[in-house]
């Protein structure tokens, strides 16, 4: 009698396992955009990245997430012995779009504050060097005139040199010198403006992207791993409210 009772109790204990074994499973293939960086939490418990999985038949809850994307919750019903696929594109999160906009504005501002003044200063410096070269040539001509005076072999040549050639070359030198000084002044102004804008732009902080969707996704979950897995948790508090 006791033996019969024991066998009956053993049978009762095995019933759920047998029922579980009798439950059939189905395959699910995930085609998520982005294809490599997404994660999902299955039935509010397991965080996974596998694109293919075998699930018991019935409804299963999925929370999908990828960096920079919104978290998407959905329920998928698996039919026993069937294979199905889920194609899903995770939309970009609002915070990421705002971050992208701010980053673009930041880069544009930096370009305006640094690149354009630097290019203008560089161009001005180049122009100044050209003007300097012209001034140097004009000065060399005066040196040549001095040499020509010392070597002049006739009074008439000296008279022409002193009354026409040298004054003409002096005018050219004066013009070249004025042009150079103007160019140099503009370059100094540009350099000062570039320095000022560079230092001012350095005070502007680069936008930082905080993925609040990740915090939402992480929540409190169990991540299975080779050494048993780990619990991860996240706490979200919106200070702007």
């Amino acid at each position, binding site marked *: 009698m006791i033996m019969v009772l024991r066998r009956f109790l053993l049978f009762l204990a095995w019933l759920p396992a047998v029922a579980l074994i009798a439950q059939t499973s189905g395959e699910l293939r995930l085609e998520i955009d982005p294809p490599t960086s997404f994660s999902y939490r299955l039935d509010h418990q397991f965080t996974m990245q596998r694109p293919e999985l075998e699930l018991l038949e019935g409804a299963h809850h999925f929370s999908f997430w990828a960096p920079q994307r919104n978290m998407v919750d959905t329920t998928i019903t698996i039919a026993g012995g069937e294979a199905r696929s889920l194609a899903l594109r995770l939309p970009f999160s609002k915070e990421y779009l705002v971050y992208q906009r701010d980053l673009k504005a930041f880069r544009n501002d930096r370009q305006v504050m640094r690149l354009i003044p630097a290019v203008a200063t560089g161009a001005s410096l180049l122009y100044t060097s050209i003007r300097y070269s012209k001034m140097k040539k004009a000065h060399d001509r005066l040196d040549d005139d001095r040499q020509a005076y010392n070597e002049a*072999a006739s009074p008439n040549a000296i008279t022409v040199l*002193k009354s026409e050639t040298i004054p003409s070359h002096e005018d050219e030198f004066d013009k070249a010198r004025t042009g150079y000084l103007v160019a140099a002044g503009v*370059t*100094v102004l540009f350099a000062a403006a570039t320095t000022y804008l560079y230092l001012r732009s350095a005070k502007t902080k680069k936008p930082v992207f905080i993925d609040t969707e990740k915090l939402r996704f992480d929540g409190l979950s169990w991540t299975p791993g080779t050494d048993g897995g780990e619990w991860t948790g996240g706490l979200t508090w919106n200070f702007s409210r």
Partner: protein
Amino acid sequence: MRRAWLLCIPLIIGLAGCLKDDLDPAGLTSNPLDPDYNGPALIELVSDTARIVYSGPVHVDTVVEQTIHVRADLLAPGTDYTLYVTLVNTGEVFDYSSEFPPPEDRAYHHVVPGVSYCYDYQLKVQFSKTKVYRYCTTANP
């Protein structure tokens, strides 16, 4: 970055300062052929005389003469030149580069005692004349 820009300013000013117009035509007076030459005399007066010319015992003329020396050593080697003399008191010109050279005698004749007689000496080089050197002699025979 800021220091680099600050270094540019003295550099630019320094470059500009290096190239000054220090060539003053009025200050160029060192070439002996220059009409404004201001060095040692290119034509030097060696001697001058006021002498009475006699024809036997008869006093026929009183002349003023000068002897000059050209400092060829001040000229560049190989410089060709001729003498150009103007008798200031009469306006007579002795151009030794002309096709018909004048006579060597360029004395003032029949001079009046006590009057100053002047010569303007120039060198003629490539058809143009140098600075005027004027020497005067007072007729005191």
